[in-house]
């Protein structure tokens, strides 16, 4: 039994399938749910903003109040490490540790560290949302 058909016409006609109508409504509901979820996680994650500040704070505490520990690293450990590579860098790290600029340098470095950590922290927002979602 053969029938006369225009092959292209038939292909054009059958090319597009009919999608279930409710897909649009399901998508809208999913978007609303996602927004609610994000709002909830944003509140939940808000306190964690202190982490980068605490991190920089710890560094500052050791750099300023436990200076001897830092001096040991800067003028001994780090200095001997740099001695291998560049004696100029080695002498400048040890002289920096004992100079008057040390506190100012440590403060500036702590602020920079906090800023960079905060920036990194904010960039990782979506990642943290997904960790919580999958947990």
């Amino acid at each position, binding site marked *: 039994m053969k029938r006369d058909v225009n*092959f292209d016409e*038939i292909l054009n006609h059958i090319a*597009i399938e009919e999608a279930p109508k409710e897909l649009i409504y399901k998508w809208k509901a999913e978007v609303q749910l*996602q927004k609610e979820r994000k709002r909830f996680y944003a509140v939940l994650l808000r306190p964690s903003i202190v982490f980068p500040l605490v991190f920089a704070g710890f560094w500052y505490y050791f750099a300023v109040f436990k200076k001897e520990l830092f001096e040991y690293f800067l003028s001994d450990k780090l200095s001997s490490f740099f001695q291998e590579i560049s004696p100029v860098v080695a002498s400048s790290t040890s002289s920096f540790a004992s100079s008057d600029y040390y506190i100012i340098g440590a403060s500036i470095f702590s602020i920079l560290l906090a800023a960079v950590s905060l920036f990194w922290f904010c960039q990782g927002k979506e990642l943290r949302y997904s960790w919580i979602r999958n947990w």
Partner: protein
Amino acid sequence: MEIDIKKLKEKSEDEFEKFFKNYINRIYTVVYRVVRNPATAEDLTQEVMMKVYNNIHKFKEQSQLSSWVFRIAYNHAVSHVRRHRSTESIEDYDAKMKNNSAGHLDYLEREELSDYIKEKLMELPENYRVALTLYHFKELPYQEIAYTMGINIGTVKTYIHRGRNELKGLLEEFIREER
């Protein structure tokens, strides 16, 4: 229908709704042509819509929006099939075809010829049926079909040509082309 990409990137839900209303059938078709299972295609289409919504900022406007969306749909469906290759889609479809194969002529009398051709189209290899489908959407040039499927233009033309020939071969028993 004019879609404002800027509004889409601003996550305007009205604009997205307009876009999806216009394209939902085509997105679903691309997915369905790959997975060959309506229920799975429905779920995957839903996921594709969310993917498009969440990643619209990554659309660089170097291609048409539609082909960018079809590319997401195609890749999503293909990776689903790869993950579940030995399970649902192929087995389900084969079972369905076995049920339907009892008497082609009876079947043809019951259903429209276009439904029969649609089923035959689904018997073609995945690449052929997707390329043929995209080609007959009548909105994508070869270059955009190539972008959607991640292949070159020559391969697209080959897929379409071979797909048509194979489909004609499958239907030869029943159709006589108009001259």
